């Protein structure tokens, strides 16, 4: 087979692959809205963890046909921004009434948002913000406040380690707005404490498995001299617990681990004393979103940022009290 033939074949294969991807992205884009329902396009993140699951299920259960809505749910393919932009564009072309957007990545949304604006489709950001944060491009952002939540973690760390500590941060993927905000809130408090020493930070991509591998190496590179691990989500915190246990240390006494999100698994782990602090990042704001959508469709003005209140859990008892009616 000549080299030329091979190149042609590979190109053909790549094109076919791209087509296949495009087709899956467009699927489910049809269906009329002649039945008097308000069409809502939800550009979602998709499977990422228990938190996201709770959040997106809550949205889906709020915007029901009984409430007068037809929700078109478009989760991203493997957290890929391109698949989100494709879904967003097809919602604009279809002419849905409102678009809800949870962006997997903060940057690169200007063009898409401008298209929606030209088509006079209001866009409401759920949870994830965009960068640069141009409030002219969207109606409002409904989210729990990441900065306040991570500040709560830092405040707890300051009070839990009066004699100081070495700490490590498990971050989400670089460049995501959540990660930047959780760092910002945490660093604003912890950075000002001379006795809290940051030994490093590394991404574990929100994943339990990667977090375990990262913490395993971090403990070795610091001769187990780490007293506090701040995991930016529950899944990574649970991975850190396993790594700490395998290093022969006791999570909760030798190494205290704080996480953000407040999923059921994390609260169970807190109740068992493995985690030391869990800051909730409340995912159940479907009702708020519904109210905002109604206001926007009525032409009312809404605030450009709406904060969803969140709780914190700092003891096994607090976790046990909250566990029975935990929805996520």
């Amino acid at each position, binding site marked *: 087979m000549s080299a030329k033939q*091979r190149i042609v*074949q*590979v190109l*053909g*294969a790549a094109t*076919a*692959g791209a087509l*296949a*991807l495009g087709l*899956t992205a467009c699927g489910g884009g049809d269906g009329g809205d002649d039945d008097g329902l308000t069409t809502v396009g939800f550009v979602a993140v*998709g*499977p*990422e*963890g*228990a938190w996201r*699951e709770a959040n997106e299920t809550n949205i889906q259960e709020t915007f029901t046909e009984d409430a007068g809505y037809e929700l078109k749910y478009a989760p991203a393919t*493997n*957290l890929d921004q391109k698949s989100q932009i494709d879904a967003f564009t097809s919602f604009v072309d279809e002419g849905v009434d409102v678009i809800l957007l949870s962006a997997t990545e903060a940057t690169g949304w200007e063009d898409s948002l401008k298209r929606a604006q030209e088509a006079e489709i209001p866009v409401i950001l759920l949870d994830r913000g965009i960068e640069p944060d141009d409030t002219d491009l969207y109606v409002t952002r409904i989210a729990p406040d990441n900065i306040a939540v991570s500040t709560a973690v830092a405040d707890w760390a300051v009070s839990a380690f009066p004699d100081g500590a070495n700490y490590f941060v498990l*971050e989400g*993927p*670089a*460049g995501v707005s959540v990660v930047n905000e959780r760092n910002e809130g945490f660093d604003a408090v912890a950075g000002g404490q001379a006795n809290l020493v940051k030994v*490093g*930070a*590394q*991404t574990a*991509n*929100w*994943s*339990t*498995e*990667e977090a*375990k*591998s*990262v913490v*395993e*190496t*971090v403990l*070795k*590179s610091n001769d187990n001299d780490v007293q506090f691990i701040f995991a930016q989500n529950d*899944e990574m915190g*649970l*991975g850190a617990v*396993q790594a700490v246990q*395998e290093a*022969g240390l006791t999570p909760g006494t030798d190494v205290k681990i704080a996480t953000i999100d407040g999923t059921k*698994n994390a609260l169970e782990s807190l109740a068992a004393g493995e985690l030391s602090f869990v800051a909730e990042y409340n995912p159940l704001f479907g009702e708020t979103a519904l109210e905002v959508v109604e206001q926007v469709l009525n032409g009312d003005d809404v605030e450009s940022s709406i904060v969803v209140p969140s709780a914190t859990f700092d003891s096994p008892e607090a976790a046990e009290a909250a566990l029975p009616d935990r929805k996520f």
Partner: protein
Amino acid sequence: MSAHAHGPAEALKALVRRQYFWGIVAIALLLLVNLVKDPGYLAVSIGSSGNLVGNVIDILRAAAPVILIAVGMCLVVATGGIDLSVGSVMVVAGAVSMEFLSGAPDTPGSGLAALGLVVVVSAALGAVNGVLVSVVGLQPFISTLVIMLAGRGLAKVITGGQNTAATNETFRWIANGYVLGLPVVFLLALLLAVAMGLLVRRSALGLMLEAIGMDPKAARLAGVNRRALLFTVYILGGVLAGFAGVFATASVMTVDVSRTGYQLELDAILAVVIGGTSLAGGKFNITGAVVGAILIATLDKTVVFLGVSSSATPAFKAVVIVVLCLLQSERVRRAFRQRRAAAARTPEREALAA
């Protein structure tokens, strides 16, 4: 190793000529960098439970899943194909086992049953690849791309979109346990890799795979059963990926449907190429693939150990890989040799003239 080597000196020379030699050099260099940062990096001590503990042990454990998928990929690439579905087969295997174990009692029996289930499911996915490639005659790139996309979707369906967790001591032991002080995962991965190596190199199987990769027509005329061999190779690749999925999920006993095995097909291809297997097919080296897999694990661990920032991590890895590929390239090496020879000749000539 070369069969012609007679003494240790010749064996060493044969090793240097191997492409994966540069992979070994790269591993050594990365370890050296870590050693500079912390002189105790290579120290392996005996932990509280009588097992070996150390950074090197961590690397071996992290390398285990990559070794398996790299070995499978190596055989597929030898036939001139490629298997993009390994990462997705991993997540399906993880999903199947976690979903099964979350409803099963915590006994060694259910652990083994989960393992059996994984073998069946991953072999079935491999068989779909095999049918598409060998019977239908589709391009391997397309066939396995289909399973790559469908597989992750399948995993989401199996777990209902959730990251499922389960408890089973036997299953957990596979990824976290120790035998003779060494991690079980690494021993298993090595055992499977050696078994594969012996299977294909001690029989004519390896030659036949290479024959298909070199020239399918000539191979058929020579009486090689192309269809059956391709079928076998894709099934083997699937089963090995299934085991890799077990290793990855059992380490934390949670399957993460969007992250488990994500983009690991690229790691596998990289390991295979570092090991000196040509993507054009017709030639393969299993030892090389294992070296490549260990290199990738070393690289991942080094990034964390050195504390390279999250945003710079991909760039750091890319630089290491590019430098390694340049070192392996025959053309670059020749250019270096010529320059060195030229430099050596000039003083010689000057000496003669004097």
